[in-house]
């Protein structure tokens, strides 16, 4: 993979080399982004079907007919899987990270451009395989994105658990390999290709977030791959890694001795770092945007870096908090709960520092900033339901109730998405040379902020009341009947919120072609991507190599001619 050195290949000619099998990290970044864009609309559509079915279980939908319980569960499974993998693990890292990491560190491309191209197309293959599960006999699997064995390991456990489940596992395995290839590139690039003067502690926080995310991925995806291999073996060649002696519908399964908990340990050892993979880039973007639009250095840069590093490290030590009710030893549960509370500390530090950045700022409210502010609000809301679930005693009434999806949707399903929106509005001018429409952006922002809060804050109430997760209908348990009103409200809110995203979609594509032309640095920002042309040339800096003299967030420097000093400007007197 070293054969091609990026700055040795001239700009490619021809449609295929330029747009399909491009080696240019910028094109690859856009490919990832647009893959994630299609995935998020698929995922949202699935969730709308879920919400509609919950409040009108007997409804017959056009084209789809009646949604049976197993269909509902396959919607749940595929919604979660597609959103977590093909949106949250793809757009922030593969999309924006690919596009902007090399530019922000002053490099002409990623370390291994051919590998980069392969990592995108491998992700694409994984995506196609995942979608194929909908169309095979039996349909998509119903075992949830967490795929607990034995439900996921027994072909006869339900409709969709045949070929559909196999395709799901194969898709995830392919995705693991694609992610590992990407992580390899990100880490090598960050360590080996920074421009002169770009020390690690002068990197923008976005670069730190992509770097740490890549390390998390490097360590976690191998374990998921191993779990997937073992599961495929149990399903298809008769091994019993996860399957104990048991029967299904009165028939012996033919397996014995395996442990369902082993799947949970392997899955969550990956699964917990995965949620930090989903949120860290959003934190990086939030820091970047908050600083830019506050005209202030980020409050506590070093603390922000150490906080992200701690989150990454501790993220590998808390996986058992998903398993408090699983039958795991209660002593182990206690140990995991202490670590889980500990990981709340760096998250709190980051929140304080974001607030500190806003304190005594000069805030400009363009669209990226709206979403960054929204990110902070959502991160606080979603984060604070964590300490409830982190205590095993309190997890007893709350585990596997709607409280849990309330928690993780606010963080992953909204805050991380707001990070993607903020990044989109922020970097759109640089990527496409035009500005997005601010009026539409504001409508999009307010509808989405209010809409998502209206959907996911009530989930906490439902959880307290004891509404279990993954129920295709709420009609069977008497104590759930009083909750239908709130569920109905949430469904309407969800419909409106999803509709509001069409405004974003329109704005995105309209502005690409018809938006007002953008200058090279419309936000008056300091990092290296704003020093180069818009859009950047093939080798990012037009034959020149940037030299970095300043920190990444030198805004409102006393005595400076403007209220921002770019990283490649002559050194400021007060060095960072």
């Amino acid at each position, binding site marked *: *993979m*070293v*054969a091609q*050195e990026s*700055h040795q290949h001239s700009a490619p000619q021809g449609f295929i080399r330029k747009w399909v099998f491009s080696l240019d990290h910028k094109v690859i970044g856009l490919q990832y982004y647009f893959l994630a864009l299609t995935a998020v609309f698929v995922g949202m559509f699935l969730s709308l079907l879920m919400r509609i079915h919950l409040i009108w279980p007997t409804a017959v939908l056009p084209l789809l007919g009646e949604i049976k319980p197993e269909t509902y569960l396959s919607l749940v499974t595929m919604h979660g899987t597609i959103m977590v993998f093909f949106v949250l693990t793809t757009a922030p890292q593969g999309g924006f990270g690919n596009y902007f990491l090399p530019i922000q*560190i*002053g*490099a002409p491309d990623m*370390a291994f451009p051919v590998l980069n191209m392969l990592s995108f197309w491998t992700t694409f293959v994984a995506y196609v395989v995942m979608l194929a599960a909908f169309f095979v006999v039996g349909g998509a699997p119903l075992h949830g994105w967490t795929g607990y064995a034995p439900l996921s390991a027994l072909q006869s456990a339900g409709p969709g658990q045949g070929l559909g489940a196999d395709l799901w596992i194969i898709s995830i395995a392919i995705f693991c390999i694609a992610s*590992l290839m990407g*992580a*390899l590139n990100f*880490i*090598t690039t960050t*360590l*080996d290709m*920074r*421009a*002169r*003067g770009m*020390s*690690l502690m*002068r990197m923008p926080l976005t670069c730190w977030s992509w770097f740490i995310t890549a390390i998390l991925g*490097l*360590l*976690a*995806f*191998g374990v998921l*791959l*191993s*779990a997937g*291999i073992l599961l495929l*073996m149990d399903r298809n*060649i*008769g*091994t*019993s*890694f996860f399957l*104990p*002696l048991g029967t299904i519908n009165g028939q012996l399964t033919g397996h*014995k001795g*395996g*442990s369902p908990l*082993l799947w949970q*340990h*392997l899955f969550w050892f990956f699964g917990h770092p995965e949620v930090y993979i989903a949120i860290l880039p959003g934190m990086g973007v939030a820091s970047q945007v908050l600083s830019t639009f506050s005209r202030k250095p980020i409050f506590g840069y070093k603390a922000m870096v150490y906080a992200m590093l701690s989150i990454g490290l501790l993220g590998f030590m808390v996986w058992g908090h998903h398993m408090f009710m699983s039958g795991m030893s209660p002593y182990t549960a206690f140990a995991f709960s202490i670590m889980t509370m500990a990981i709340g500390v760096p998250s709190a530090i980051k929140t304080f520092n974001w607030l500190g950045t806003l304190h005594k700022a000069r805030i400009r409210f363009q669209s990226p900033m709206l979403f960054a502010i929204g990110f902070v609000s959502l991160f606080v809301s979603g984060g604070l339901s964590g300490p409830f679930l982190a205590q095993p005693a309190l997890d007893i009434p709350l585990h596997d109730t709607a409280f849990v999806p309330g928690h993780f949707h606010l963080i992953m399903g909204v805050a991380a998405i707001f990070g993607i929106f903020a990044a989109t509005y922020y970097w759109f001018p640089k990527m496409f040379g035009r500005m997005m429409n601010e009026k539409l952006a504001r409508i999009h922002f307010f509808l989405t902020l209010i809409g998502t809060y209206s959907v996911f804050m009530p989930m906490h109430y439902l959880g307290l009341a004891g509404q279990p997760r993954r129920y295709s209908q709420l009609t069977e348990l008497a104590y759930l009947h009083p909750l239908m009103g709130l569920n109905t409200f949430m469904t309407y809110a969800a419909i409106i919120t999803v509709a509001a995203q069409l405004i974003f979609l329109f704005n995105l594509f309209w502005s690409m072609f018809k938006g007002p032309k953008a200058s*090279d*640095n419309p936000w008056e920002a300091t990092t290296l991507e704003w*020093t180069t*042309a818009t859009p950047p040339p093939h080798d990012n*800096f037009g034959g*020149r*190599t*940037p*030299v*970095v*003299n300043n920190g990444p967030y030198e805004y409102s420097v006393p005595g400076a001619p403007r209220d921002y000093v770019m990283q*490649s*400007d*002559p050194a400021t007197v007060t060095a960072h």
Partner: protein
Amino acid sequence: MASFTPTIPAPRPTTSRGEHGNLPPVVGGGDGGRPDPGSPDYGARLRRARLGLAVALTPIGMLFVAFTSAYIVRQGLPTFDPSTNTVVHDWIPVRLPTLLFLVNTCVLLLSSVTIEYARRQLARQVALEPVQSIPGVSLGAERKFPWLELTIILGLCFLAGQWLAWSDLAARGFYVATGPSSSFVYLLTGAHAVHLLGGILALLAAGVSVALNRPLASRRIVVDVTAWYWHFMALLWIYILALLEFAR
């Protein structure tokens, strides 16, 4: 507005690890003074490739760490037996074709030696390439011993040997799903074999690149990286064998 500082007029952009302070401008070779066979960033490319390999070996390691932990857990796992209402352990270690595994180990270690020779041979060739054109200079009495080709053959012999080992197990009635112990034997050795096959394919690609007249420097980088990968695979194999033999 974008602003530029005066930048270094390098013929090609060079990148470094971003050291502090005022270093003199770097023109041409950026690899710490090593000889520069034609492309100024050859040393940097080699270092980058090695860094990439070190990073790539991490998830491979994690895969086998995960398999190991599954192995250890499974060995000690108590399971509830309803027919006696008690908790039982059902781990029975399978007898391994130890002699065959040991022979394979020797083959693999030998191939590690040959690939190391191949790696150094190619490094020397690359270093001497610029001066080859000087009349009277030659590589001396060094024959072009086919270390690379030998490694490929030994690698294939190892894989063949593993196949024989699996056949031996199968002949005694131990297949993948026969029992937990046999499952792990096939799993661990099979996963290792797949990764080793990847290494063999990389070596074949390096061999093919000779025929295709690829630059020597690129070929050296491929072989260098594959050689380190190969040594890792050898160590991994020893680890797997030790795990299967001793952690029963």
